[in-house]
């Protein structure tokens, strides 16, 4: 799966170009170029700050072609991304993606996960106000929407947060969210994405749940994940693609890390699709979506190569 490594390394300079790397700037650490440089946006999208986790992983892991490993500037930029992120925390603890005062569950979950892991990977002390985000995520149930990938991100973020801060309540809240994901799983194996299953988002959820299992090997979750893989495997063709019909959200990206952690044969199909350049990958995507997929490619590469310290 050397293709994963090559794609990550091809995306890293692009992602760094999205970041304000001038430490004297008032927007130092902001990863939304449309905000800090072009000034076309009136507030920064918090999801861009997930670049910080990619930089932290690149800084920590020595592998072929990784020119960022051990570079103090990369470490400083990763921490700056997390610090800029917390500066934009809303008073209640949430974060915005699409508009000011959105209080987005999805963005708060995913960006918290990355920020927490950035501080953890780099051995840095997180700010006290992070606890407010933990409380907000713990309380928020998003009951009117059944979006499993977002719930899984919230669960993993809360679990990682409990490990970072020693706050036991966050772990309880994380497990409550996992309870809900498992209880709402369809008997055929898909995790709910609105009113049905979605192959692309199933891969996101499986990646997050496999990471959760590494921290807490819950038996019911293991069983749910096995059912989840059984649902997705036959849907994916020999190049990692699938028919768009019958998917609740129409996502066309495939997150590989869940398959990597499971040592699942779908990985060979992903490899074939990437080699033939027929599988959607971060290089084809816009800035917003390239970040999450690049992070997952990096985690998958570190898992498969056994070369890294990803925890």
């Amino acid at each position: 799966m050397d293709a994963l490594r090559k794609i990550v390394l091809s995306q890293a300079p692009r992602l760094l170009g999205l970041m304000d790397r001038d430490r004297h700037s008032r927007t130092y650490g902001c990863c939304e170029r449309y905000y800090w440089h072009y000034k076309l946006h009136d507030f920064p999208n918090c999801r861009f700050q997930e670049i910080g986790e990619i930089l932290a992983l690149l800084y920590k892991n020595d592998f072929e072609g990784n020119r960022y490993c051990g570079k103090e500037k990369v470490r400083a930029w990763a921490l700056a991304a997390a610090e800029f992120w917390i500066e934009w925390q809303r008073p209640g603890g949430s974060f915005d993606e699409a508009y000011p005062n959105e209080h987005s569950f999805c963005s708060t979950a995913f960006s918290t996960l990355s920020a927490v892991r950035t501080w953890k990977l780099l051995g840095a002390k997180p700010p006290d106000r992070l606890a407010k985000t933990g409380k907000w995520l713990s309380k928020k149930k998003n009951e009117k929407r059944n979006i499993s990938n977002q719930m899984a991100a919230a669960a993993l973020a809360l679990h990682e947060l409990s490990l970072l801060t020693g706050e036991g309540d966050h772990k309880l809240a994380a497990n409550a969210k996992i309870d809900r994901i498992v209880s709402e799983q369809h008997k055929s194996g898909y995790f709910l994405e609105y009113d049905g299953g979605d192959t692309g988002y199933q891969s996101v959820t499986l990646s997050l749940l496999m990471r959760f299992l590494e921290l807490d090997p819950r038996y019911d979750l293991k069983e749910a994940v096995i059912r989840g893989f059984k649902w997705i495997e036959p849907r994916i063709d020999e190049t990692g693609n699938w028919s768009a019909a019958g998917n609740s959200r129409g996502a066309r990206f495939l997150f590989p890390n869940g398959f990597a952690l499971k040592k699942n044969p779908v990985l060979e199909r992903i490899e074939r699709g990437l080699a033939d350049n027929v599988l959607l990958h971060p290089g084809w995507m816009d800035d917003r979506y390239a970040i999450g997929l690049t992070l997952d490619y990096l985690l998958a590469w570190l898992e498969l190569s056994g070369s890294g310290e990803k925890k």
Partner: protein
Amino acid sequence: MANRPRTPMTPMRLAAFRLFNVTFGRIGAFARLLRRRLERKLIYRGTQRYVPSSRFFHFDELED
């Protein structure tokens, strides 16, 4: 770095800007006036010229 960012956009500033764009800005003379003013402020008068295509990453930056 050569091009340090200026004041970021804010929701109120963007709202005011858009209000101008869709009212007076529809009239050619006002649109040209705005453009001239922005060019003067961002490119000709500023201490650090705004260059949209600048500040991408280069590997030189990794070295101290």
